[in-house]
Protein backbone atom coordinates (compact mmCIF):
# COMPACT_ATOMS: atom_id res chain seq x y z
CA UNK A 1 0.00 0.00 0.00
CA UNK A 2 2.34 2.68 -1.33
CA UNK A 3 -0.13 5.54 -1.01
CA UNK A 4 -0.45 5.19 2.76
CA UNK A 5 2.66 7.06 3.63
CA UNK A 6 1.51 9.27 6.44
CA UNK A 7 -0.45 8.83 9.63
CA UNK A 8 -3.67 10.36 8.29
CA UNK A 9 -3.69 7.85 5.47
CA UNK A 10 -3.04 5.15 8.01
CA UNK A 11 -6.13 6.15 9.99
CA UNK A 12 -8.25 6.87 6.87
CA UNK A 13 -6.77 4.69 4.14
CA UNK A 14 -7.66 5.31 0.51
CA UNK A 15 -8.74 1.72 0.11
CA UNK A 16 -9.38 -1.22 2.41
CA UNK A 17 -10.03 -4.88 1.62
CA UNK A 18 -13.77 -5.37 1.23
CA UNK A 19 -13.73 -8.21 3.75
CA UNK A 20 -12.59 -5.76 6.42
CA UNK A 21 -15.85 -3.86 5.92
CA UNK A 22 -18.01 -6.95 6.07
CA UNK A 23 -19.61 -6.99 9.48
CA UNK A 24 -20.35 -10.69 9.25
CA UNK A 25 -16.66 -11.49 8.78
CA UNK A 26 -15.26 -9.79 11.92
CA UNK A 27 -18.48 -8.89 13.80
CA UNK A 28 -16.34 -5.88 14.74
CA UNK A 29 -15.42 -7.71 17.94
CA UNK A 30 -11.92 -6.24 18.13
CA UNK A 31 -13.38 -2.80 17.47
CA UNK A 32 -15.98 -3.19 20.22
CA UNK A 33 -13.24 -4.37 22.60
CA UNK A 34 -11.21 -1.26 21.85
CA UNK A 35 -14.26 0.95 22.36
CA UNK A 36 -14.84 -0.72 25.74
CA UNK A 37 -11.18 -0.10 26.58
CA UNK A 38 -11.55 3.61 25.82
CA UNK A 39 -14.69 3.80 27.97
CA UNK A 40 -12.80 2.00 30.76
CA UNK A 41 -9.93 4.45 30.54
CA UNK A 42 -12.18 7.50 30.74
CA UNK A 43 -14.46 6.20 33.51
CA UNK A 44 -11.49 4.67 35.37
CA UNK A 45 -9.72 8.02 35.36
CA UNK A 46 -12.87 9.62 36.79
CA UNK A 47 -13.14 6.94 39.50
CA UNK A 48 -9.59 7.71 40.58
CA UNK A 49 -10.64 11.20 41.67
CA UNK A 50 -12.70 9.77 44.53
CA UNK A 51 -11.33 6.26 45.10
CA UNK A 52 -8.98 5.75 48.04
CA UNK A 53 -6.92 2.58 47.74
CA UNK A 54 -6.14 0.64 50.89
CA UNK A 55 -7.37 -2.32 52.87
CA UNK A 56 -9.48 -0.16 55.15
CA UNK A 57 -10.49 2.68 52.83
CA UNK A 58 -11.14 1.09 49.42
CA UNK A 59 -14.56 -0.33 50.14
CA UNK A 60 -15.96 2.64 52.06
CA UNK A 61 -14.73 5.16 49.49
CA UNK A 62 -16.64 3.24 46.80
CA UNK A 63 -19.80 3.19 48.93
CA UNK A 64 -19.56 6.96 49.28
CA UNK A 65 -18.73 7.37 45.61
CA UNK A 66 -21.75 5.37 44.47
CA UNK A 67 -24.23 6.77 46.97
CA UNK A 68 -23.49 10.45 47.63
CA UNK A 69 -21.13 11.80 44.95
CA UNK A 70 -23.19 13.28 42.08
CA UNK A 71 -23.15 10.85 39.10
CA UNK A 72 -20.72 8.61 41.03
CA UNK A 73 -23.00 5.60 40.76
CA UNK A 74 -23.32 6.08 37.01
CA UNK A 75 -19.58 6.32 36.50
CA UNK A 76 -18.91 3.27 38.66
CA UNK A 77 -21.52 1.25 36.80
CA UNK A 78 -20.24 2.36 33.38
CA UNK A 79 -16.77 1.18 34.42
CA UNK A 80 -18.11 -2.09 35.75
CA UNK A 81 -20.23 -2.94 32.70
CA UNK A 82 -17.59 -1.85 30.19
CA UNK A 83 -15.22 -4.23 32.03
CA UNK A 84 -17.68 -7.10 31.77
CA UNK A 85 -18.32 -6.32 28.09
CA UNK A 86 -14.64 -6.20 27.26
CA UNK A 87 -13.91 -9.63 28.73
CA UNK A 88 -16.77 -11.10 26.68
CA UNK A 89 -15.88 -9.38 23.38
CA UNK A 90 -12.15 -10.12 23.68
CA UNK A 91 -12.91 -13.82 24.07
CA UNK A 92 -15.38 -13.81 21.17
CA UNK A 93 -12.83 -11.91 19.05
CA UNK A 94 -10.32 -14.71 19.64
CA UNK A 95 -12.93 -17.32 18.71
CA UNK A 96 -13.61 -15.46 15.45
CA UNK A 97 -9.89 -15.48 14.65
CA UNK A 98 -9.81 -19.24 15.21
CA UNK A 99 -12.99 -19.69 13.12
CA UNK A 100 -11.56 -17.82 10.11
CA UNK A 101 -8.08 -19.42 10.53
CA UNK A 102 -6.58 -15.95 10.88
CA UNK A 103 -3.84 -17.15 13.23
CA UNK A 104 -1.95 -18.71 10.31
CA UNK A 105 1.14 -17.13 8.67
CA UNK A 106 1.76 -14.32 8.03
CA UNK A 107 -0.37 -13.38 11.04
CA UNK A 108 1.17 -15.65 13.63
CA UNK A 109 2.91 -12.80 15.46
CA UNK A 110 -0.31 -10.83 15.79
CA UNK A 111 -1.99 -13.94 17.18
CA UNK A 112 0.62 -14.02 19.93
CA UNK A 113 0.11 -10.30 20.63
CA UNK A 114 -3.61 -11.08 20.90
CA UNK A 115 -2.99 -13.87 23.41
CA UNK A 116 -0.89 -11.49 25.53
CA UNK A 117 -3.70 -8.91 25.36
CA UNK A 118 -6.24 -11.51 26.47
CA UNK A 119 -4.12 -12.37 29.52
CA UNK A 120 -3.66 -8.67 30.33
CA UNK A 121 -7.39 -7.97 30.12
CA UNK A 122 -8.22 -10.92 32.35
CA UNK A 123 -5.67 -9.72 34.89
CA UNK A 124 -7.06 -6.17 34.69
CA UNK A 125 -10.49 -7.56 35.41
CA UNK A 126 -9.15 -9.50 38.39
CA UNK A 127 -7.24 -6.56 39.89
CA UNK A 128 -10.33 -4.36 39.40
CA UNK A 129 -12.35 -6.87 41.38
CA UNK A 130 -9.75 -6.72 44.17
CA UNK A 131 -10.03 -2.92 44.27
CA UNK A 132 -13.64 -3.19 45.47
CA UNK A 133 -12.09 -4.13 48.83
CA UNK A 134 -15.03 -6.28 49.92
CA UNK A 135 -14.91 -9.51 51.90
CA UNK A 136 -15.14 -11.43 48.61
CA UNK A 137 -12.29 -9.52 47.02
CA UNK A 138 -10.22 -10.24 50.12
CA UNK A 139 -10.94 -13.93 49.66
CA UNK A 140 -10.03 -13.72 45.95
CA UNK A 141 -6.75 -11.97 46.76
CA UNK A 142 -5.91 -14.58 49.40
CA UNK A 143 -6.52 -17.43 46.95
CA UNK A 144 -4.38 -15.73 44.28
CA UNK A 145 -1.52 -15.11 46.74
CA UNK A 146 -1.68 -18.71 47.96
CA UNK A 147 -1.68 -20.17 44.44
CA UNK A 148 1.30 -18.03 43.40
CA UNK A 149 3.04 -19.04 46.63
CA UNK A 150 3.10 -22.63 45.37
CA UNK A 151 5.63 -21.73 42.66
CA UNK A 152 8.94 -22.89 44.12
CA UNK A 153 11.42 -20.13 44.89
CA UNK A 154 9.81 -17.27 42.96
CA UNK A 155 6.22 -17.55 44.10
CA UNK A 156 6.17 -15.58 47.31
CA UNK A 157 8.15 -12.69 45.85
CA UNK A 158 5.92 -12.64 42.76
CA UNK A 159 2.79 -12.47 44.91
CA UNK A 160 4.31 -9.50 46.76
CA UNK A 161 5.06 -7.66 43.53
CA UNK A 162 1.62 -8.29 42.03
CA UNK A 163 -0.64 -7.93 45.06
CA UNK A 164 1.26 -6.39 47.97
CA UNK A 165 -0.19 -7.55 51.24
CA UNK A 166 -3.96 -7.90 50.91
CA UNK A 167 -5.87 -8.65 54.08
CA UNK A 168 -8.18 -11.66 54.20
CA UNK A 169 -11.21 -9.37 54.15
CA UNK A 170 -10.12 -6.75 51.59
CA UNK A 171 -8.06 -7.08 48.43
CA UNK A 172 -7.51 -3.36 47.94
CA UNK A 173 -3.82 -2.51 48.31
CA UNK A 174 -1.76 0.31 46.88
CA UNK A 175 0.16 -2.25 44.81
CA UNK A 176 -3.01 -3.58 43.17
CA UNK A 177 -4.16 -0.01 42.57
CA UNK A 178 -0.97 0.93 40.71
CA UNK A 179 -1.13 -2.18 38.53
CA UNK A 180 -4.82 -1.76 37.76
CA UNK A 181 -4.96 1.99 37.18
CA UNK A 182 -1.62 2.63 35.54
CA UNK A 183 0.79 -0.15 34.66
CA UNK A 184 -1.58 -2.71 33.14
CA UNK A 185 -3.69 -0.20 31.12
CA UNK A 186 -0.49 1.37 29.73
CA UNK A 187 0.96 -2.00 28.68
CA UNK A 188 -2.41 -3.00 27.23
CA UNK A 189 -2.71 0.30 25.34
CA UNK A 190 0.69 -0.02 23.66
CA UNK A 191 0.11 -3.66 22.80
CA UNK A 192 -3.22 -2.72 21.23
CA UNK A 193 -1.66 0.02 19.10
CA UNK A 194 0.97 -2.49 17.95
CA UNK A 195 -1.82 -5.03 17.30
CA UNK A 196 -3.63 -2.59 14.99
CA UNK A 197 -0.45 -1.59 13.17
CA UNK A 198 0.42 -5.24 12.59
CA UNK A 199 -2.98 -5.85 10.98
CA UNK A 200 -2.01 -3.45 8.16
CA UNK A 201 1.53 -4.79 7.98
CA UNK A 202 0.19 -8.32 7.59
CA UNK A 203 -1.98 -7.25 4.66
CA UNK A 204 -5.18 -6.21 6.40
CA UNK A 205 -8.25 -8.15 7.43
CA UNK A 206 -8.92 -10.68 4.66
CA UNK A 207 -9.44 -14.40 4.30
CA UNK A 208 -6.15 -16.22 3.78
Amino acid at each position, binding site marked *: MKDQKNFVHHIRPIFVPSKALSVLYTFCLGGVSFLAFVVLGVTGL*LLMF*HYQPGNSTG*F*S*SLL*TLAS*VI*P*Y*GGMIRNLHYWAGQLMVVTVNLHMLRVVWTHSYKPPKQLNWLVGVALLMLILFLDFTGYLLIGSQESGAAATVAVNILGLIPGLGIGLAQVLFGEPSAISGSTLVVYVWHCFALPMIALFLQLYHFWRIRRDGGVRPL
Partner: protein
Amino acid sequence: MPRQLEWTRRAVLRLAWVGVIAASALTIEPLVQYLTSKEDRLQSTLVGYSKPLDVNSDWQNTANARVWVKRDSLGVMALVATCTHLGCEVHYHVEKKEWLCPCHGSIYDLEGRPISGPALKALPRVAVELKPDGSLIINTSKQVGMDTRV
Protein backbone atom coordinates in the same frame (compact mmCIF):
# COMPACT_ATOMS: atom_id res chain seq x y z
CA MET B 1 -37.30 27.06 -6.99
CA PRO B 2 -34.82 27.27 -4.11
CA ARG B 3 -32.14 24.66 -4.08
CA GLN B 4 -33.48 21.50 -2.47
CA LEU B 5 -31.55 20.29 0.60
CA GLU B 6 -30.15 16.95 -0.39
CA TRP B 7 -29.86 14.21 2.25
CA THR B 8 -26.62 12.78 1.04
CA ARG B 9 -24.63 10.43 3.25
CA ARG B 10 -22.20 13.29 3.81
CA ALA B 11 -24.95 15.63 5.03
CA VAL B 12 -26.36 13.06 7.43
CA LEU B 13 -22.92 12.31 8.87
CA ARG B 14 -22.25 16.01 9.30
CA LEU B 15 -25.48 16.31 11.26
CA ALA B 16 -24.36 13.36 13.38
CA TRP B 17 -21.23 15.33 14.31
CA VAL B 18 -23.43 18.19 15.51
CA GLY B 19 -25.30 15.67 17.64
CA VAL B 20 -22.07 14.28 19.10
CA ILE B 21 -20.82 17.73 20.00
CA ALA B 22 -24.16 18.71 21.55
CA ALA B 23 -24.23 15.49 23.59
CA SER B 24 -20.68 16.11 24.80
CA ALA B 25 -21.59 19.63 25.86
CA LEU B 26 -24.36 18.16 28.00
CA THR B 27 -21.81 16.14 30.00
CA ILE B 28 -19.83 19.20 31.11
CA GLU B 29 -22.10 20.24 33.97
CA PRO B 30 -22.39 16.69 35.47
CA LEU B 31 -18.61 16.29 35.15
CA VAL B 32 -17.95 19.52 37.04
CA GLN B 33 -20.39 18.43 39.75
CA TYR B 34 -18.71 15.04 40.05
CA LEU B 35 -15.17 16.39 40.12
CA THR B 36 -15.84 19.21 42.57
CA SER B 37 -17.97 17.21 45.00
CA LYS B 38 -16.55 17.31 48.52
CA GLU B 39 -19.10 14.94 50.01
CA ASP B 40 -16.40 12.37 50.71
CA ARG B 41 -14.18 14.79 52.62
CA LEU B 42 -13.42 13.47 56.06
CA GLN B 43 -16.10 14.61 58.48
CA SER B 44 -15.67 14.76 62.21
CA THR B 45 -15.46 11.30 63.70
CA LEU B 46 -17.00 12.49 66.96
CA VAL B 47 -20.63 11.78 67.80
CA GLY B 48 -22.44 13.13 70.84
CA TYR B 49 -25.18 11.63 73.06
CA SER B 50 -26.70 13.74 75.82
CA LYS B 51 -29.90 11.94 76.90
CA PRO B 52 -29.87 10.03 80.22
CA LEU B 53 -28.74 6.41 79.90
CA ASP B 54 -30.08 3.99 82.56
CA VAL B 55 -28.10 1.04 83.85
CA ASN B 56 -29.02 -2.09 81.90
CA SER B 57 -30.79 0.01 79.31
CA ASP B 58 -31.29 -1.38 75.84
CA TRP B 59 -29.23 -0.05 72.90
CA GLN B 60 -30.00 3.62 72.16
CA ASN B 61 -29.36 5.23 68.78
CA THR B 62 -27.52 8.55 68.61
CA ALA B 63 -28.95 11.23 66.34
CA ASN B 64 -27.90 11.16 62.66
CA ALA B 65 -25.32 8.44 63.10
CA ARG B 66 -24.94 4.68 62.96
CA VAL B 67 -23.64 4.79 66.53
CA TRP B 68 -25.57 3.08 69.34
CA VAL B 69 -24.88 3.34 73.08
CA LYS B 70 -25.75 1.16 76.09
CA ARG B 71 -24.97 1.04 79.80
CA ASP B 72 -24.59 -2.12 81.87
CA SER B 73 -23.41 -2.61 85.45
CA LEU B 74 -19.79 -2.13 84.37
CA GLY B 75 -20.22 1.05 82.38
CA VAL B 76 -21.06 2.60 79.02
CA MET B 77 -20.22 1.13 75.61
CA ALA B 78 -20.73 2.26 72.00
CA LEU B 79 -21.28 0.17 68.88
CA VAL B 80 -21.24 1.07 65.16
CA ALA B 81 -24.13 -0.52 63.28
CA THR B 82 -22.21 -1.21 60.08
CA CYS B 83 -22.30 -4.81 58.90
CA THR B 84 -18.83 -6.34 58.87
CA HIS B 85 -19.73 -8.31 55.72
CA LEU B 86 -20.17 -5.61 53.08
CA GLY B 87 -20.99 -2.51 55.05
CA CYS B 88 -24.78 -2.18 55.04
CA GLU B 89 -26.42 -0.55 58.03
CA VAL B 90 -27.69 -3.22 60.41
CA HIS B 91 -30.95 -2.73 62.31
CA TYR B 92 -31.54 -3.48 65.97
CA HIS B 93 -34.50 -5.77 66.62
CA VAL B 94 -35.81 -4.83 70.07
CA GLU B 95 -37.96 -7.95 70.69
CA LYS B 96 -35.38 -10.45 69.46
CA LYS B 97 -32.43 -8.55 70.95
CA GLU B 98 -30.54 -9.13 67.72
CA TRP B 99 -28.95 -7.02 64.99
CA LEU B 100 -30.20 -7.87 61.50
CA CYS B 101 -28.55 -6.96 58.22
CA PRO B 102 -30.99 -6.28 55.36
CA CYS B 103 -28.42 -6.97 52.62
CA HIS B 104 -27.38 -10.61 52.90
CA GLY B 105 -29.07 -11.60 56.14
CA SER B 106 -26.25 -11.54 58.65
CA ILE B 107 -27.54 -11.76 62.24
CA TYR B 108 -25.61 -10.56 65.30
CA ASP B 109 -26.48 -11.19 68.95
CA LEU B 110 -27.21 -8.49 71.52
CA GLU B 111 -23.49 -7.86 71.97
CA GLY B 112 -22.87 -7.64 68.22
CA ARG B 113 -21.24 -11.05 67.82
CA PRO B 114 -22.10 -12.74 64.50
CA ILE B 115 -24.59 -15.63 64.85
CA SER B 116 -25.40 -16.45 61.24
CA GLY B 117 -25.05 -15.20 57.69
CA PRO B 118 -21.91 -14.24 55.78
CA ALA B 119 -20.45 -11.81 58.34
CA LEU B 120 -17.47 -13.20 60.27
CA LYS B 121 -16.50 -10.34 62.55
CA ALA B 122 -18.38 -8.70 65.41
CA LEU B 123 -19.90 -5.24 65.01
CA PRO B 124 -17.17 -2.75 65.92
CA ARG B 125 -17.06 -1.16 69.38
CA VAL B 126 -15.69 2.36 69.59
CA ALA B 127 -14.27 4.58 72.32
CA VAL B 128 -16.58 6.57 74.61
CA GLU B 129 -15.68 9.56 76.72
CA LEU B 130 -17.82 10.61 79.67
CA LYS B 131 -18.12 14.37 80.11
CA PRO B 132 -18.63 15.98 83.54
CA ASP B 133 -22.24 16.89 82.69
CA GLY B 134 -23.01 13.22 82.04
CA SER B 135 -23.19 13.45 78.24
CA LEU B 136 -21.14 11.17 76.02
CA ILE B 137 -18.63 11.84 73.25
CA ILE B 138 -18.08 8.84 71.00
CA ASN B 139 -14.97 8.67 68.82
CA THR B 140 -15.86 6.44 65.86
CA SER B 141 -12.31 6.40 64.55
CA LYS B 142 -11.02 4.67 67.69
CA GLN B 143 -11.97 1.01 67.85
CA VAL B 144 -11.94 -0.76 71.23
CA GLY B 145 -12.43 -4.31 72.49
CA MET B 146 -15.77 -5.96 73.29
CA ASP B 147 -15.24 -5.69 77.08
CA THR B 148 -14.27 -2.05 77.21
CA ARG B 149 -16.62 0.07 79.38
CA VAL B 150 -16.43 3.65 80.54
